[in-house]
């Protein structure tokens, strides 16, 4: 991150949420701009060129999904979606339209900050340039295709390694089932989620200390998986 403060555009029609985010994000040295409506958000994104968008899906004028779609026509600005719980299809659709991540309302500040940091990090770096990934006891050497837990090598099947590698490359970010399936198995496998579940299960057996309570590969119910960032030490709460 550079010297310049990161500029966040918060788009939400609820003044309380905007006020709370302005205060909280400000405390973490983010520079916050606000928009209450979809059209306003699109206009401000064009004129102010913020670094990241925190977007509520339920807007009074334009649907949040439409806002994503229209912005994505000309901009690759990172977008984190705020949504009410239990609308998994909305989340998936938002991610499909090009949103980078999502946070479910009500959310904890820690969770939102973790998402913002992870998203920005990937944006600034592009694809990871660090060949070795460290996360607690887990180390993944992408150049040598070597996975170790506490220094002991873990032997992974090719598909398991592919899944882990994809998650590592996008560490901290949610990967939808479809994204993972497309990455690892290729086109045409997007609906075979049980492939994914079987391999994730095996992967967890190999790298998690307690597969029933995973620390690394977190299930995002109804959406996909996320490799928990080392810095994201708070439990996601909903």
């Amino acid at each position, binding site marked *: 991150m550079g010297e310049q403060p990161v500029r966040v555009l918060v788009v939400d029609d609820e003044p309380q949420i905007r006020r709370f985010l302005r205060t909280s994000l400000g405390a973490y040295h983010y520079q916050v701009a606000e928009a209450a409506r979809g059209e306003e958000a699109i206009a401000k994104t064009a004129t102010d060129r913020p670094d990241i968008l925190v977007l509520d899906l339920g807007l009074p004028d334009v649907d949040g999904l439409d806002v994503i779609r229209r912005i994505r026509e000309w901009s690759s600005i990172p977008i984190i979606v705020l949504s009410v719980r239990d609308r998994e299809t909305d989340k998936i659709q938002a991610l499909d339209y090009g949103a980078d991540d999502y946070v479910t309302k009500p959310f904890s500040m820690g969770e939102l900050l973790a998402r913002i940091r992870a998203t920005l990090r990937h944006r600034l770096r592009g694809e990871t340039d660090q060949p070795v990934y460290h996360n607690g006891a887990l180390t993944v050497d992408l150049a040598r295709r070597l996975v170790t837990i506490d220094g002991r090598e873990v032997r992974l099947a090719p598909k*398991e390694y592919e899944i882990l590698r994809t998650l590592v490359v996008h560490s901290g970010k949610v990967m939808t089932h479809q994204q993972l399936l497309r990455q690892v198995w290729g086109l045409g496998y997007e609906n075979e989620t*049980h492939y994914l579940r079987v391999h994730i299960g095996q992967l967890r057996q190999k790298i998690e200390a307690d597969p029933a309570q995973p620390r690394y590969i977190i299930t995002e119910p109804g959406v996909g998986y996320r490799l928990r960032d080392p810095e994201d030490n708070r439990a996601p709460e909903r």
Partner: protein
Amino acid sequence: MTEHDDSERRPSPDALLSMAQQEQRGRLKVFLGAAPGVGKTYAMLEAAQVRRREGIDVVIGVVETHGRQETEALLEGLEVIPRQRIEYKGHALTEMNLDAILARRPKLVLVDELAHTNAPGSRHPKRYQDVEEILAAAIDVYTTVNIQHLESLNDVVAQITGIRVAERIPDRLLDRADEIELIDLSPDELLQRLREGKVYVPEQAEKAVRNYFRPGNLTALRELSLRRTAQRVDDQMRTYMHAHAIPGPWPTQDRIMACVSAGPGSERLVRSSKIRADRRHAEWLAVYVETPAHYRRSEAERDRIAQTLRLAEQLGGEAAVIPGENVAEELVRYAKSRNVTELMIGKSSRPRWREILSGSIVNNLIRLSGNIDVYVITDEGKQASLPATRPSPRHLDAYVWSAVAVSVAALVARVLDDVLTLPNLSMIFLAAVLLSATIWGLGPSIFASILSILVYDFFFVEPTFTLTVASPQDVFALVMLLIVAILTSNLAGRVRDQARAARRREARTNVLYEFSREMAASAGLDNVLRAIAKDLHESQGMDVAVFLPRGTTLDLSAIQPTDAIVDAQARAAATWTWQHSEATGSGTDTLPGVNWLFLPMQAAQTTVGVLGLRVEKGKTIAPDQRRLLVAMANQGAVAIERAELAAVMEETRVLAETERLRTAMLSSISHDLRTPLATISGATETLLDMDAEYTPEEQRDLLETIQEEAARLNRFVGNLLDMTRLESGALELNCDWVEIGDVIGAALGREASFLANYRLDVDVEPRLPMLHLDFVLMEQVLVNLLDNAAKFSPPGTTIHLSAQKAGKMVQVDVMDEGPGIPLEDLKRIFDKFHRVRGGDRRSAGTGLGLSICQGIVEAHGGAIEASNRAEGGALFRITLPVNGGPPKMRQELDGG
């Protein structure tokens, strides 16, 4: 008699009621004439013109002017309802348009020629029935009729004029008319008018004068009309005096009973009884005794009996059928039970020999009648008597078989001739007679008796092979044999008939019993309807349809067989039945052309529906079957009413339950929303208080409280939303192949913070099959169960979570080490808003969580149950089905 006087002085309720009913109905005025041509139509039109000038809304339903100019002139200014065209066998006939009149709703309608018979295909066969419907619609009617058309005078008129009138109207029309105007014209004047061509065109008039308009006839008819009108005036006065409690010289309460038989004179008997009853202002009834022999009668005879009884009802009498063995005894017993003062019976038409054998009913009746007067009416004999019942082929068989029996007896007697004496041989013949009596009935057995005598005489009595008898002893033996044989035949035959009648009655009772049992066993309206249709179809062999009213229309609610067709005309008949609570269709007076019979299904208070039975073209429903059907229709009605009542009660119960839930929900919401809100606002206020000073620890403690309460609020709102979605059916399962271990992991991860104070023991059996379920919802179930476990067990204890295979199911157990579930709550623990009382412990939760768990698990085809563990604490067990497993992967799993 003082008691009697008391009751006379009070206004009689019946009289008041009948006056009140007349007020709601339209008023009927009859212009009564003695013969055609007296000027009834003219008088009616004149009266109508007067009413029109008074400003009354008068229309003409139908008026026949017969081309008379002076009559036609009177039509001026009166609106005519156009007649209806009815196609019948290629002819276009016009009839009064009943529906147009009912739709037009005038105050007064003119309907000429009341006794007219409508064209086939009209709603009613008779015009007077149209008039009754108009009156029922509260429209006044002026009508005309000649005295000869009156049902009760039919025989008298036929006697006077020698012409039997086919178009007849029931007396009740005249009895119930509000006004009768007698159009009187002396016979001389009438004949004058005839000759002037004012009545018929000349050549017709010539013929008419010769046949009908003889001065003698006219005088007699005129007298009949005058007498009938006078009687009517008398009746009106009596009704008035009754209604106003004016004591008067009432005649004694006579009651006349007509004893109906199968003979052709019975209709005449009924009419005479009616006239006699009217003259004496007496009540009257017609009674038929149904003996076992009734079932031997032909269909035509049985039909005629039923028609006679219906005639009695049409004439205002009461009709009754009583079962019994001895006609005279039953008649007298019934007459005494009903305080009958006069018995009327027709002269016997039975052959003399039968009267000698079984006694004359008339004689017996007179002997038994005691102080009841008995009037014997002559049989005119003019009415076509029914063709004598020829022995049917089956009967002929019976005679042949009787002959065979006698032949066998003769053969046996021949063989035993040497061993037995002559009188003993006769026993063998008696056996044959007895046999034919028991099997084939009276006729064949008498035939067998006579045949036996002849054979016995011919073959066995000296001199043999002749019919002569030598010794006086043998004569005696022969005569004795004949007497014994005939007596035996008679007795055995009667026993057999009784047994048959009993079987018939029993069969009928059985059908009814089976039907009512079926009705009682059916729960729910749909089942009852199906049972009615199916049972009737099976027991009666007819197509059956059941109609129930829905709003203002009548809906076909059940039909058997399901491909039976009820056409539009039949539907119209069914609707009429429903509206008027009267039978329509085949064999009735209304829409008889329809090949269905519709019966109103009458329960205690109302007509709940209409029962339809398809009658094959050309067939009729026998009276006993019809009675059975009416009974079944009414039994079905009671069952339908019961089912409808049950549905209403169920609705009420559901409403009460909904009400209870709403109350519970309101208290739950107000409690569960307000408690965390109070904590949050209190804690925030404390923190914002500038004056107070708090240590950082205290501040943190308050803030953590706020955070926890906010999370709790969030869970509650989430539960409310889930419940709403579950209840509105908006919950859609988004199923996917999932490892249950993954779900458990996600749930534990999500709730890590509130499980912080508990030890967790997770035990997931390896290699569990994948389950097809909604990940998010199942995770919610586990979170709710974990939440529940944490709430009900003290901190520091262990919460156990396990998953294992059990047969074709996977079980997930959530166990705590708390106090367990009170027994009284075990059953209701999954009920909405049910809370287990936590005593002085902290809030026992929303009462929604477990109910949601149940909803979700059951939506997955699984089950959830609560129990207490032997070692203490509660156990919640979810059982989920393994649905085969996921589709095979398209490539081999990579080894690892």
